[in-house]
């Protein structure tokens, strides 16, 4: 079991498919506690990623991660663009010395926290990345664990991102970025040969 350009591409394509299918749902999640665009932002991003990978087959994992990062950074905008972009950029850097999934996700998680300044409990995508990166480090990840991480954001009160402007009224809603991150992890465990 190891990450290759091929199964990375398969994983990202599966993620892209989920985001595209759930575009409206992600935007809906972003409506009560955000500005209703997370689905559109992510759909635009994954489309750009696929176009980039189609246009130029990456030579190696580092190149692949970098292409993904650049596509996201230059096409998504908003909060999720730099955050997802940073995650993949950190994986690109890390992939120069390790192709272990656990190492890559630890680097990505650290990058997201540094870029956005959020920590676990702030009702952001960090509430998915941090615990699931830890699970990956411990060697396994299940869909139930993914769901649990995503769902944990529901009752939280947002401290970062647009939802934080709502204060206590942000509670009772799933965080859209947590949900889209959940799709990334689901796509990961569903892609054969990676874990």
């Amino acid at each position: 079991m190891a990450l290759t350009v091929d199964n990375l591409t398969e994983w990202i394509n599966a993620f892209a498919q989920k985001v595209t299918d759930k575009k409206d749902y992600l935007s809906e999640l972003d409506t009560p506690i955000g500005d209703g665009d997370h689905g559109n932002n992510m759909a635009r991003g994954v489309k750009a990623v696929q176009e980039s990978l189609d246009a130029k087959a990456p030579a190696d994992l580092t190149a692949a991660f970098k292409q993904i990062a650049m596509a996201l950074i230059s096409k998504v905008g908003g909060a999720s663009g730099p955050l997802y972009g940073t995650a993949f950029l950190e994986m690109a850097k890390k992939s120069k010395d390790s192709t272990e999934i656990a190492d890559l996700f630890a680097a990505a998680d650290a990058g997201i926290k540094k870029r956005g300044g959020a920590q676990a409990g702030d009702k952001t995508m960090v509430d998915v990345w941090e615990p699931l990166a830890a699970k990956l480090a411990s060697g396994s990840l299940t869909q139930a664990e993914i769901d649990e991480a995503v769902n944990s954001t529901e009752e939280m009160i947002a401290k970062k991102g647009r939802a934080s402007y709502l204060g206590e009224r942000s509670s009772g809603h799933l965080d859209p970025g947590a949900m889209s991150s959940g799709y990334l992890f689901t796509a990961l465990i569903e892609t054969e040969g990676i874990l």
Partner: protein
Amino acid sequence: MKKIINEPGNVVPEMVDGLVRAYPQYLRQIPETMAVIRSNEDSMAGKVGIVSGGGSGHEPSHAGFVGPGMLSGAVCGQVFTSPTPDQIYEAIKAADHGKGVFLVFKNYSGDAMNFDMAKDLADVDDIEVKSIVVDDDIAVEDSLYTQGKRGVAGTVFMHKILGAAADQGASLDELEELAQAVLPNIKTIGIALHAATVPEVGKPGFELADDEIEYGVGIHSEPGYKREKIKASKDMAEELVGQLDKSLGLDSSKKYAVMVNGMGATPLMEQYIFSHDLLDLLNAKEISPAFMKVGNYMTSIDMAGLSLTIFELKEDKWLDYLNYKVDTIGW
């Protein structure tokens, strides 16, 4: 959704194209980007560049404030979505005339992260970049542990002040100092009668009943602090002035600039009536604004409603900056 558009996904490129081609005397589009820069290159020579931007949907902000005496360039993101770092970086490069570039953006995570990444890119080119994060909306509580307050219509005053100072030769450091000094004195609060419809979403950000209004709404259909039955204009003015008074401590011995800002679908008729009520209230406090503007400056697509900005003019120079000559589409 009933709009004069083509593909909802194409509104930004088509809008920027229409704007730039309608006003070539003011704007030039930077190739391959949704960023615009002043056509009048000479007016930027030897001066610090001022670049602003953010999500689209706030027209005439920000491109409408590009011109001599105000912004050097503006970057147009997707609707209600921060522009990307590469685009901001292109605007920085075009705005730099050897004295560095000052960035103005609003306090949203997205804007902060994208503008910061653009700054990193400019660093590599040795372009000196400084910035101010505007957070004038008092509807949202400030707190050290959160994102803080939102940036809204007061940003336009910031553009005007910095643009005038830059035009008069202020250095990057002086602009930073000026921006920091001005920032805490600009406060805004808004109301909505109807939320905005993002073209790609197709329905309003929130629903208000036929007789309801929302106080403290943001410029992206963010809900505000309370929802009530609609009242007379003078009662709405009283609520907004009351909130701003709590924050600024309105006082007849001080000088103020005031902006009544339409959200996009609210006609000037209503804005002028509100201004009448507002000026009556200020009058009762023996305050007569030293500067005032009424109109659509920082809109929220087709939101119905308005915001009120009060800016305490701590220094006479700030009033001079507001009155300083300017040539843009939107001011």
